[in-house]
């Protein structure tokens, strides 16, 4: 039996799981809910593995496209169809695998929370949408998934709806995402207009057949390729929380921690990267926009890293870290290293999911406390959690041979090789900062003395197996995932970088545009050394400031030496406030003006004035009917004279 023919079931199964749990209702039995909620992703995972196996083992794998039905027919046909190609294979694996683990973890983490069933409905819904996003064979299906995950993000961030903040955070996430989606949509429209289709393969084929078509001037002084690339990137900015639309992601931490791991670290936020890579043919033709992407990525990376330095909420730190890492991915995509972007996406999925789940375990142990200032010395209470967490931290810091090292280093190497030295430098500094703030987290959480209340201390315990087992599995992944992308050049064997080879069919090659950057292996080695050194330096700084049981002293030291920077970082560069002042308030003011002035005063006012004038005219007119018959006779007489005058004239 050909597993590929069941490809469509992969996204459908979680949807069905969600529907089933939805029908079970809030009163559904715990076991049943778990069975459905975790079972559906498991089935998806198994099916996905089957598909991947089938796909990978087929000779000379050609992209597999499966069309279910026509979403819209007619001259502008858009199908509901799925595509399995090397890129979606990677994504499929990451999403189903990490997703399943997080489902398992959730079963433990959420076991005692209210709304257990609702949680799994949302989470399954998310899995379905995410799979739709990555398996979609055209931009539209991807977009459906794209917004679907946005919705789930909204629902899950606002999961604790009885509090004030989470619903607000969810709303913010949704709206900010939507701003990006507008860009995405406009990009789609332009594609639709240019190619009459949204199908990936057909568009790529059309571009390859006639690249010059895309270089024609289109609108806003941009070529078609640049226009599309720019607007698609706007979508990516929103979804992947890049400058300037990153503000939603830190707030999104209001949701349950597994959600943060799954959605706001491993999968959804990387959709932007996926989409850019998916559209690489266009981006390759839009060199200017690609530079822009790289710059945004680099800026976001360092910017978020600085904020990460000054956060006290463990999840906030991880959130900014995610933003920062996503910046790396865009940096990679911007400099044309698409496979590096996907590589980092994959490794990041593992170690960041692990970090989040670890933090979830910590929070679980701390009875919901998220403030690192109240933690400390947890390592001895949480052996598995602390070890896996530290492993992931090392991975993200970029210490070989853990996964983060390979992927991050590949990005930096490609950046350097492509001649973006400034961006490379920024990336390097960020790497140092990353190592620094991540180890700050580790030190503040796991070392030193406990700073929380006694009650909390009393309750601290290691999490159940359903939570720790995923941690361990992810830790293995975080440690080893880098091996799929060993920099082959160093060893003179390009094919050693399996991922690069695997993905190469997906990447368009334009003879005149895509000159491969070649760096000598000596340079590569040197760069690698530098990045390791930087990471180690970052760790040492962290250790100096926060390590060795110094607790909060490091923060105070930082605050007293650089009060301005500290405040700036702690308050996230005041971006939220800035938006409030320059966007939200003026628009709200405008809205009030529209309502109170234009609607009420001008339009209704003029109508009321019209009515009033009419009525006043009538009121004045009625005064002519004096009741005195002599007046009436006079009107008659006057009327005659007027009429006669009219005739005489």
């Amino acid at each position, binding site marked *: 039996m050909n597993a590929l023919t069941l490809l469509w079931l992969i996204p459908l199964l979680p949807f069905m799981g969600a529907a089933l749990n939805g029908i079970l209702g809030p009163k559904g039995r715990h076991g049943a809910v778990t069975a459905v909620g975790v079972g559906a992703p498991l089935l998806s995972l198994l099916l996905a593995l089957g598909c991947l196996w089938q796909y990978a083992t087929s000779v000379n794998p050609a992209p597999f496209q499966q069309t279910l039905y026509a979403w819209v027919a007619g001259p502008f046909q858009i199908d509901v169809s799925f595509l399995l190609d090397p890129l979606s294979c990677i994504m499929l694996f990451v999403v189903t695998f990490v997703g399943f683990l997080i489902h398992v973890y959730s079963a433990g983490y959420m076991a005692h929370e209210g709304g257990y069933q609702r949680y799994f409905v949302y989470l399954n819904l998310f899995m379905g949408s995410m799979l739709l996003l990555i398996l979609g064979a055209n931009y539209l299906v991807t977009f459906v998934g794209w917004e679907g995950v946005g919705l789930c993000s909204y629902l899950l961030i606002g999961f604790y709806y009885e509090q004030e903040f989470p619903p607000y955070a969810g709303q913010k996430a949704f709206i900010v995402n939507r701003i990006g989606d507008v860009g995405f949509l406009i990009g789609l429209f332009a594609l639709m207009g240019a190619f009459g289709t949204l199908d990936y393969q057909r568009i790529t084929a059309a571009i390859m057949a006639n690249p010059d078509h895309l270089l024609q001037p289109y609108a806003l002084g941009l070529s078609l390729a640049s226009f599309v690339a720019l607007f698609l990137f706007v979508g990516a900015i929103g979804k992947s929380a890049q400058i300037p639309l990153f503000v939603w992601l830190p707030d999104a931490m209001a949701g349950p921690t597994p959600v943060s791991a799954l959605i706001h670290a491993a999968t959804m936020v990387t959709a932007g990267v996926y989409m850019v890579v998916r559209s690489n043919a266009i981006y390759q033709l839009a060199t200017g926009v690609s530079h822009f992407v790289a710059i945004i990525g680099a800026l976001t990376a360092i910017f978020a890293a600085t904020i990460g330095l000054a956060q006290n909420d463990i999840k906030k730190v991880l959130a900014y870290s995610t933003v920062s890492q996503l910046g790396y991915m865009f940096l990679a995509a911007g400099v044309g290293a698409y496979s590096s972007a996907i590589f980092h996406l994959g490794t990041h999925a593992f170690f960041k999911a692990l970090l989040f789940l670890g933090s979830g375990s910590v929070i679980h142990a701390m009875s919901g406390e998220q403030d690192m200032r109240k933690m400390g010395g947890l390592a001895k209470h949480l052996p598995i959690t602390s070890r896996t967490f530290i492993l992931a931290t090392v991975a993200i810091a970029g210490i070989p041979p853990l996964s983060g090292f390979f992927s991050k280093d590949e990005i930096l190497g490609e950046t350097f090789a492509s001649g973006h030295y400034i961006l490379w430098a920024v990336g390097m500094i960020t790497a140092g900062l990353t190592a620094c703030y991540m180890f700050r987290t580790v030190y503040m959480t796991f070392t030193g003395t406990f700073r929380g209340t006694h009650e909390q201390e009393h309750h601290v315990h290691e999490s159940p197996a359903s939570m720790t087992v995923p941690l361990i599995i992810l830790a293995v992944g975080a440690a080893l995932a880098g091996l799929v992308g060993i920099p082959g050049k160093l060893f003179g064997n390009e094919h050693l970088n399996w991922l690069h080879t695997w993905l190469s069919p997906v990447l368009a090659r334009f003879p005149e545009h895509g000159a491969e950057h070649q760096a000598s292996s000596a340079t590569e080695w040197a760069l690698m050394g530098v990045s390791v050194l930087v990471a180690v330096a970052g760790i040492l700084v962290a250790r100096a400031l926060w390590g060795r049981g110094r607790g909060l002293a490091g923060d105070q030291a930082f605050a007293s030496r650089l009060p301005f920077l500290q405040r700036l970082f702690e308050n996230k560069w005041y971006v939220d406030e800035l938006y409030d002042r320059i966007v939200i308030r003026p628009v709200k003011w405008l809205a009030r003006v529209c309502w109170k002035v234009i609607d009420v005063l001008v339009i209704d006012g003029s109508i009321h004035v019209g009515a009033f004038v009419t009525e006043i005219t009538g009121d004045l007119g009625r005064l002519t009917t004096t009741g005195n018959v002599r007046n009436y006779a006079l009107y008659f007489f006057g009327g005659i*004279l007027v009429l006669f005058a009219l005739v005489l004239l």
Partner: protein
Amino acid sequence: MELFVFSLFALGALVSALAVVSHRNPVYATMSLVVTLVCVAALFLMLGAPFIATLQVLIYTGAIVVLFLFVIMLLNIQREEHSAPSGGAQRWAAILMGFVLAGLLFGLFWRAHAGAEIQPLTEDQVSLTRLARLLFTEYMLPFQAIGLLLLAAVVAATVLARRPDGRITAPGEESK
């Protein structure tokens, strides 16, 4: 001679007409109307309409004016009351517009008919027979209709003048 007679009656008619419209006491006004009517009747005579002149005197002065006097006496109206001030604007507008109309009529009549030759009276024109023949042939229908009109007027007058409880009495009695 004819001019003199005309002037006399015309003047009489105008003066008495002015008296009709200006005298505060309705009784005097009514009496002045009699004078006007008689003067106009005389002019009818001069215009060769003796039958109409007779009717004028008989019906108007003999019947209508008497009716007026009767009602005025019945209602015991002596003078116009002064309590409610008469609207000045109404008065002046009326007079102004009256003059406009007068000017118009005078002008138009003068322009249309000044110097029109007038034929001497013929027998036919003063013939009562011819008048009667007209009445009974060409104007048969109005003649019949006027019968109904008069009947209706009688019924209308009785309906209106009846006391609220239906008895026909003089209005003066009820106030007592």
